């Protein structure tokens, strides 16, 4: 936090040249994996994340069967080489928690009632990690679910906003996440106008809390347009082309 000055300059320009409310470059590809029933790859800043979906499939072990709906399984996992210091491949407590909140963020979008007694598996593999990997993972995972043909009420799209000093900013990268003053990952179902993930780190005044939260929703809606384009490309524009959207500076 000593480094706050450095993260944003007197003109409101951040270390990587972005304004307070700009997104990092995002690139989306749908249908990139051969074996998975559905898949999507996202590059978001320096994040490189693969999401893949299998299912609906038989549930093992059987005692986990849900008679009236599908069981959604989710694993968020970081490759050992995805971070600065090699990560032990066994799941950390952080990965276990994030797997849980990603699952809870996705499950209300999936029409699980359409697939009783089955399992739907969502595998999110972080190949390179930057700030915001969980929201990037959710964004890719909901595309992978759609690619797998799973019935959904809406896509889910995530964005993280936060604080540098008392300045609300969108989409923190790794440095901003670590040296900044707060991070607020948010996932939304944009057409239904609902929030399916919300976590908060940092110290926000009531005003800044609202500002960051609403900015995250606004940015989420913007990324939702990229998701739509990626799906359009997937289903109408040929196989697994990438949708790269560089936002014009506002």
């Amino acid at each position, binding site marked *: 936090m000593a480094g706050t000055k450095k993260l944003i300059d007197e003109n409101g320009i951040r270390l990587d040249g972005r304004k307070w409310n700009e997104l990092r470059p995002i690139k989306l590809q749908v249908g990139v994996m051969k074996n998975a029933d559905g898949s999507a790859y996202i590059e978001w800043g320096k994040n490189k994340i693969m999401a893949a979906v299998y299912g609906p499939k038989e549930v093992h072990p059987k005692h986990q069967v849900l008679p009236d709906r599908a069981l959604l399984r989710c694993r968020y996992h970081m490759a050992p080489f995805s971070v600065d210091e090699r990560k032990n491949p066994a799941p950390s*407590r*952080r990965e*276990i*928690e994030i*797997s*849980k*909140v990603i*699952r*809870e963020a996705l*499950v*209300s979008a999936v029409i699980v009632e359409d697939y009783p007694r089955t399992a739907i598996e969502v595998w999110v593999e972080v190949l390179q990690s930057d700030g915001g990997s969980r929201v990037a993972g959710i964004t890719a995972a909901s595309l992978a679910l759609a690619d797998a043909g799973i019935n959904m009420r809406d896509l889910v799209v995530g964005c993280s906003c936060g604080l540098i000093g008392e300045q609300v900013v969108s989409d923190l990268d790794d440095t901003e996440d670590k040296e900044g003053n*707060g991070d*607020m990952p948010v996932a939304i*179902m944009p057409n*239904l*106008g*609902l*929030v*399916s*993930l*919300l*976590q*908060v*780190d*940092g*110290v*926000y*005044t*009531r005003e800044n*809390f*609202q500002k960051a*939260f*609403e900015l995250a*929703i606004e940015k989420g809606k913007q990324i939702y347009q990229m998701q739509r384009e990626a799906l359009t490309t997937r289903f109408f524009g040929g196989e697994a082309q990438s949708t790269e959207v560089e936002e014009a500076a506002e």
Partner: protein
Amino acid sequence: MMKKNHVVESITKERMVQLLASGKRLDGRALDQPRNLNIETGVIPKANGSARVTLGNTLVLAGVKIATGIPFPDTPDKGILMVNAEILPMSSPYAEAGPPSEDAIELARVTDRGIRESEMVDMTKLGLIPGKSVIAVFVDCNIMNVDGNLFDATSYAVVSALRTAKMNRYVVKDDKAVATDELIPVPVERTPVSVTIARIGDKLVVDPNSEEEASMDMRITITTDDDGNICASQKGEASTISAEQVLQAADTSISVGKAIRAKILEATS
């Protein structure tokens, strides 16, 4: 988290929603009214600090143990804080013995976040020899009886245990940290308060008990600090919340949190 009897639950939920429509809860509380909170500190003299918290029938015991440790490479002059929780198998018919469940890990991490982000403990005062030796604060939470809202009960227990914890003063001699006999408080600066709100039907209720948790669609925990700032939050369960309700929950957390903070301060001063 738990297995449910679906028939009883659906009847209970129906009744609960009817009552909520008229602003009432099954146990007679107002929508924004937490259950009775009881805090007893110093219950484990062998620990550096401890607190036994009951929130309704939810019972949590937190114990603080303090030792010296090696700092993390990226914070060579700061102490270490670790929060751990075990949902004891005795706590409910559904809890199981074994390694920490997903629920216990989330519980510990959310509690930890509230403490850490609010800067409750001044970690810079826990450094001893930069890069070599710092004070490590372990807070372990035994969830002993579950009747809903583990997040808040656990958070109050941890905050109360830390606020009343005593540790040896250390001096550095010949590049070694040596404990003196003098006992000093842990450098606590803030009092973060977690408030958990459930949505049942379309109503938000504060501090859900087990019965309400079985009927709730969504849970959100918001932690605020002494100045009414928001310093941690966690939306839980497999459902959604509208943006308006998030903001409404934030306001509720600030106001309810204020009253609870007063109770915690009273019990721990």
